[in-house]
């Protein structure tokens, strides 16, 4: 009897140890996989669309990375990994790319993925009839005729993208673009199944119709409740895909999301502002924080609607020097963010920050200099500078605005807080340009400094402060054809620090709780890209 029990125990242990699934290349040998290969993650807000050509949100892009596959993926460090593009040729003038596509790639209905699917997708984004907010991404890619196609002046067939044959895609740019291939990891550039889109129209992304070419297909999409994706058997690398189901649950309240994580209902949630140190202490193997490519700043309105005072560079500099970034990062946010002295996130690929003296000054030095500059500009105790700080309703923005108000009080500036509802705030900023100083945030579209720096050129729609600097415009124009654009980026960053159209405040970090049994998840990628196909769940 005793032997029998021992034997059966042994058999049970052996059964438990045997991998339940065929081990993929991503899983190290000897790893004990969980039977339940599911992954559930948290979304702050609902996904607005799963159409790669219409999406404009970071969260939507994240989900599309699982459902679709484009020419390139990223690895944990942000390097390009060939996905559907197995190789490419570049013409001598650096304007024509020829991509050779993976022949075995299939859509989830069994059709092969062809170069024409890319052509159709890109034309669809640019087509004025599609009315995609992200048509601007196609313009950003510098595809030939992109501006004219988006503005309806030329037919979509004039767009610089062609299928030479089923597996060869030719892209023609209007000018050499150093970061062109980096841009191809964004879902806007992914192929879409022409037949399916034409058959179902706007309904093609419903679970019952949707056809995708990625490692997962859409199973359920209930707005406000959940999105469920399941492993696609037609995916060319399905044998190396371990997770069988990926679920996203939108929960607006971050504290409630954390409670549900603690209850085991979620595998990943964002840590609510200020709670990272406590959670890191209590759950060292679950609380994580890594750089995330977004920057938070205060933009000065130097345009015709802005106050006269802010047209004086000395005032803008004084205001920037007066902000104590260390207190904001260490006492308010506490999630691994870093003080920012450049608009470009410090961890952006290839970025070399210029020498910015005030970044190295002590707090006392900055204050002294700020006061001196204000005095020089004609402001003092009997003639104080009065400004308003505009931000959209949110407790985090409010905390920072209150802190800045106090910092500025110390250098003799009287700031009032103007808090607006989101859509009103957007109108004030981008449409009416009606503000003094406004909170702005910017997240990278691709991992390269120009994604930040382009925002400040005089013709940019994002330049809400209407800053107009001919030298900066020229440097940014030159950078697109330069051999080493990084030198231009450093120069442009130096101009920003010298002319201070905005005061960078902090560089984002992404602080999350991650279930320690989920492996293969990217924790370094600054774009916060991740691919469920590389992930797996270990047994408890």
């Amino acid at each position, binding site marked *: 009897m005793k032997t029998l029990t021992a034997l059966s125990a042994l058999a049970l242990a052996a059964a438990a140890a045997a991998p339940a699934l065929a081990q993929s290349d991503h899983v190290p040998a000897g790893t004990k996989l969980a039977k339940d290969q599911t992954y559930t993650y948290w979304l702050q807000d*609902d996904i*607005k*669309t*799963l*159409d790669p050509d*219409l999406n*404009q949100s970071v969260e939507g892009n994240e989900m599309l990375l699982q459902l679709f596959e484009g020419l390139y993926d990223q690895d944990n460090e942000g390097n390009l990994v060939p996905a559907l593009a197995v190789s490419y040729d570049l013409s001598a003038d650096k304007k024509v790319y020829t991509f050779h596509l993976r022949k075995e790639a299939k859509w989830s209905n069994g059709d092969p993925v062809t170069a024409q699917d890319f052509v159709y997708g890109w034309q669809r984004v640019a087509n*004025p*009839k*599609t*009315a*995609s*907010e992200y*048509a*601007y991404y196609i313009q950003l890619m510098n595809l030939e005729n992109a501006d004219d196609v*988006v*503005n*309806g002046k030329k037919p979509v067939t004039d767009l610089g993208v062609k299928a030479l044959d089923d597996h060869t895609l030719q892209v023609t740019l209007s000018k050499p673009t150093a970061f062109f291939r980096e841009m191809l990891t964004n879902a806007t550039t992914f192929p879409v199944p022409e037949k399916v889109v034409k058959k179902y129209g*706007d*309904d*093609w*992304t*419903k679970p019952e119709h949707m056809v995708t070419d990625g490692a997962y297909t859409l199973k359920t999409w*209930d*707005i*406000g*409740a*959940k999105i469920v994706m399941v492993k696609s058997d037609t995916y060319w690398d399905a044998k190396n895909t371990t997770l069988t189901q990926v679920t996203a*649950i*939108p*929960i*607006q*309240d971050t*504290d*409630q999301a954390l*409670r*549900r994580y*603690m*209850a085991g*209902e979620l595998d990943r949630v964002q840590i609510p502002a200020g709670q990272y140190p406590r959670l890191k202490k209590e759950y060292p193997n679950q609380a994580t924080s890594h750089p995330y490519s977004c920057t938070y700043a205060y933009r000065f309105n130097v345009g015709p609607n802005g106050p006269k005072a802010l047209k004086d560079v000395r005032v803008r500099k004084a205001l920037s020097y007066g902000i104590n970034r260390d207190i904001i990062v260490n006492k308010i946010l506490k999630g691994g963010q870093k003080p920012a002295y450049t608009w470009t996130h410090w961890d952006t690929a290839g970025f070399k920050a210029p020498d910015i003296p005030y970044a190295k000054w002590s707090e006392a030095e900055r204050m002294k200099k700020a006061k001196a500059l204000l005095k020089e500009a004609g402001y003092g105790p009997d003639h104080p500078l009065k400004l308003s700080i505009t931000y959209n309703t949110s407790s985090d923005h409010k905390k920072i605005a209150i802190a800045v108000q106090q910092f500025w009080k110390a250098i003799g500036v009287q700031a009032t807080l103007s808090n607006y*509802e*989101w*859509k*009103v705030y*957007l*109108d004030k*900023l*981008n*449409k009416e340009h009606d503000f003094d100083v406004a909170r*702005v*945030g*910017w997240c990278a579209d691709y991992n390269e400094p120009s994604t930040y720096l382009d925002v400040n050129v005089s013709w940019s*729609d*994002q330049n*809400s402060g209407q800053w107009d600097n001919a030298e900066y415009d020229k440097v940014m124009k030159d950078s697109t054809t330069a051999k080493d654009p990084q030198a231009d980026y450093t120069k442009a960053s130096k101009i920003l620090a010298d002319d201070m159209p905005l005061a960078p405040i902090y560089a984002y970090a992404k602080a999350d709780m991650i279930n320690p049994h989920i492996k293969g998840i990217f924790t370094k990628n600054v774009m916060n890209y991740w691919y469920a196909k590389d992930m797996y769940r270990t047994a408890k």
Partner: protein
Amino acid sequence: MIVYILKRLAVAIPTLLVLIIVSYMLMHFAPGNPFSSERAVSPEIMKNLDAKYGLNLPLWEQIVHYLWQVVAHFDFGPSFVYKDRTVNDIIAQGFPVTLTYGFLSFIAAVAVGVGLGITSAIRRNSWLDYCAVGLSIGAQVLPNFVMAPILVLIFTLGLHWLPGGGWSFHDPRFWILPVIALSTSYMASITRITRSSMLDVLGSNHIRTARAKGLPNRKVILRHALKPALVPVVSYLGPAFVSMITGSVIVDVYFSTGGIGKSFVDSALNRDYAVMMGVTILLGTLTILFNLVVDILYAWIDPKIRY
């Protein structure tokens, strides 16, 4: 009675029409734009968007076109923000969920509220009465955005009995927390209204007469006191029913139920004109309908109204 109902219905149609036109105009005069985001959209792309959604037409033309779509085709159009969904899709997905937990909450609120109200009125000044009054005051002052997290702390994190969120039509465990969170304050109001109205009725002449006739207490309560005592409760229940079955943004947000309450609030914040109109019309229609039902119920309960 039939004529009365028909008359009420005839008034309902222009009421709805006014509701639609006024909300449409209010929405368009509100600052903000459905397509604006942190990433500013260029004027050219904005023009494409306006053309796609018909926002480039004069306002009156938009309203006429909208009314025609709604009346003739029962089509509320595409959502401006959820690009791959129509308003009909969004309502079809969210409303059944809301209806389910709203209806259950209504049943719970009425059953417990009326029961507790009557009992405490009959046993006035007993410990049971004090408990009921205390509980209902407590429940009324505890808003559901405070209660929802407390419920999750107790039942999900503490006891591991119930899921902290999500929805399934097949698994009642998902229904319990939303129903408790939604029904409690209604329950409290119903208890208080029932109790005070019952006390009024119990002190009235016809009850004294019934008692004087020597009727047993049970009969006095059920046959003579209950019906008149319910009149104020019923007038409360009409609007309460509509507001319960059209959901609660708090419940939807905390429990990720996917109900219509969140869509309504989000549509206002997102300036999703189409969803906002669709849900407003749905809510308006239900409100008008149930006010009518309440009036009919009145007539049935209280003959004084009928004659």
